[in-house]
């Protein structure tokens, strides 16, 4: 490809279509993979029968495994992967920082502290399915709100001040979280670590229904902000002179990204790297416009997390790897590869 020529519209269309196909294939693969062998064709027929066409040929056991164990897990992975990827891409755009990820403003540290408070207090009126996600969600939002206030509400200050405030709040919350964790038994520490590394093992339709509205609304807001993020690529001052209400746009997209991320991590734990590597790889494929990066990242992120979850639950079967370990094991080498490609091609505006 000629460096002076950005990706052609045809190439963008092919990548976009591939991302949708990847989601379908990975989702079907996610339903098929597991200790109980179920043929693809049976799963496909069952899926089609759920939209009112044809008949399912699965046995009642297969039906139970597919629709009560695997399907909620696959759907939750799709939602989490989509949200984390879109939030990562949005943060990279709004802060014009290639290292930005969904946890930039302290979401991870806040959620970690909230979840740890719930886990160390188990048995004292706290229960895992209710309190852990609730306190993780509350902690994540508290961290972002504090970052926003300390960072000058993103209006008086520039984005660097907000990022630095996020670093400070994350350090503070992590210190509290580590103190709480270390003050408890090794069993508690193990439970906290497992939560921090993320897992979809306890996925249920109930969790899907909790997370779904947040992901749909927040992803919609972020994807719709693609045009504004393209304008922001010329900097705050020039964006304002072009008619962009920079402070309002920043508030809305940071709010949407943080809220969606908080909702996802409160249920699946802290899954790293998705929010960084997916937008970077998509940028490499389709260029620097957020109108393309965000919707395509949504699909590739969703597909990637289903694959990562598939790996997490099969490589050491019958036990499971934390999904955060898989995303980091895959993410780190891919990230290095992307960085190497950056040396020879423009994939991030300097």
């Amino acid at each position, binding site marked *: 490809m000629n*460096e002076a020529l*950005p990706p052609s519209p045809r190439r963008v269309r092919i990548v976009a279509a591939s991302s949708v196909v990847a989601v379908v294939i990975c989702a079907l693969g996610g339903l098929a993979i597991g200790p109980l062998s179920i043929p693809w064709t049976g799963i496909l027929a069952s899926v089609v029968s759920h939209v009112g066409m044809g008949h399912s040929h699965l046995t009642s056991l297969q039906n139970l495994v597919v629709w009560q164990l695997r399907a909620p897990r696959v759907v939750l992975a799709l939602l989490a992967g989509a949200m984390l990827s879109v939030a990562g891409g949005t943060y990279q755009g709004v802060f014009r920082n290639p290292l930005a990820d969904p946890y930039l403003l302290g979401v991870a540290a806040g959620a970690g502290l909230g979840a740890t408070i719930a886990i160390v207090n188990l048995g004292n009126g706290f229960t895992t399915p209710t309190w852990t996600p609730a306190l993780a969600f509350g902690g994540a939002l508290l961290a972002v709100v504090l970052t926003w206030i300390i960072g000058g509400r993103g209006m008086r200050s520039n984005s660097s001040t907000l990022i630095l405030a996020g670093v400070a709040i994350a350090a503070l919350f992590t210190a509290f979280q580590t103190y709480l964790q270390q003050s408890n038994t090794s069993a508690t520490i193990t439970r906290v670590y497992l939560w921090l590394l993320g897992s979809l093992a306890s996925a249920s339709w109930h969790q899907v229904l909790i997370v779904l509205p947040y992901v749909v609304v927040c992803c919609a807001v972020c994807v719709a902000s693609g045009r*504004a993020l393209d304008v922001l690529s*010329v900097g705050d*001052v*020039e964006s*304002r002179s*072009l008619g962009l209400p920079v402070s309002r746009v920043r508030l809305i997209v940071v709010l949407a990204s943080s809220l969606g991320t908080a909702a996802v991590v409160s249920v699946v734990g802290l899954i790293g790297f998705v929010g960084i590597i997916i937008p970077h790889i998509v940028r490499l494929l389709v260029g620097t416009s957020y109108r393309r990066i965000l919707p395509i990242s949504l699909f590739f992120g969703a597909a990637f997390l289903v694959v990562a979850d598939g790996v997490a639950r099969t490589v050491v079967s019958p036990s499971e790897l934390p999904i955060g370990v898989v995303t980091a094991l895959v993410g780190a080498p891919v990230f290095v590869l992307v960085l190497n490609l950056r040396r020879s091609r423009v994939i991030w*505006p300097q």
Partner: protein
Amino acid sequence: MAAISIRNLSVHVGDAVLINDITLDVPAGTWCTVIGPNGAGKTTLVESAAGIRSPSRGSIFVEDVDMSTMNERQRAKKIALVPQHPTVPAGMTVRDYVGLGRTAHHGILRAMTARDRALVEDVIARLDLSHFANRDVASLSGGERQRMVLARALAQSTMTIVLDEPISGLDLRHQIDFLELLRREVDDCGLTVLSTLHDLTLAGQFADRLVLLSDGSLVREGLSRDVIRSPELAASYAMTLRVVDIDGADVVVPVRNLSMDALQEQPQMFGETP
């Protein structure tokens, strides 16, 4: 009618006074250039006029509308900015970059309309950017890049454009080309231009009016020829300047080898007609 009316404008940053009580009218359809030594307040004045810097005191009116009552979108439909150091986002095409100028018209949630696209294509053709409209903005030369930034400003379809040192970093040929291009827009399209320029000769030759600033205050304002030949010019720069008339054009020549004491006592301006 004045396209831009500045009334008792003062800009302070902490204790520093960047602009001190300036009142100025920029007549519609003219080119007004702000000149003065470094630190005189030129950039602060034009940034305030473009609405990207808030005044500490005073008011700015664009087409008789108080700028403080306008939001970003309303302002972007009245006045466009060509900054001194524009950010050029690598990976974006020239066409998309010029299209950013239509942001205030189509809004941030809607795509460009057919009219927006036609306007962008018209500006691209007018500024002779057609043959690299699909190129990456990062691949352009300095002169091409500056034309592209002007194209973005023109795509805003405002009647007033503010430019801060638009020819800095360009070679002489590209400086003249750029200023001729801007002059044509003023003469043919009735554009109002408020700019800053360091080159006094080019400022005098291309602008209709000059505004001389020194230490944040307005020293002299008027027709270019009058300001260029005024004694205040040399005094503001604290040096001796000679103005030479070459084929009817004023050329400002700095003269060295005068002691600083003499300069401070008696700044001088010499006129000479060959």
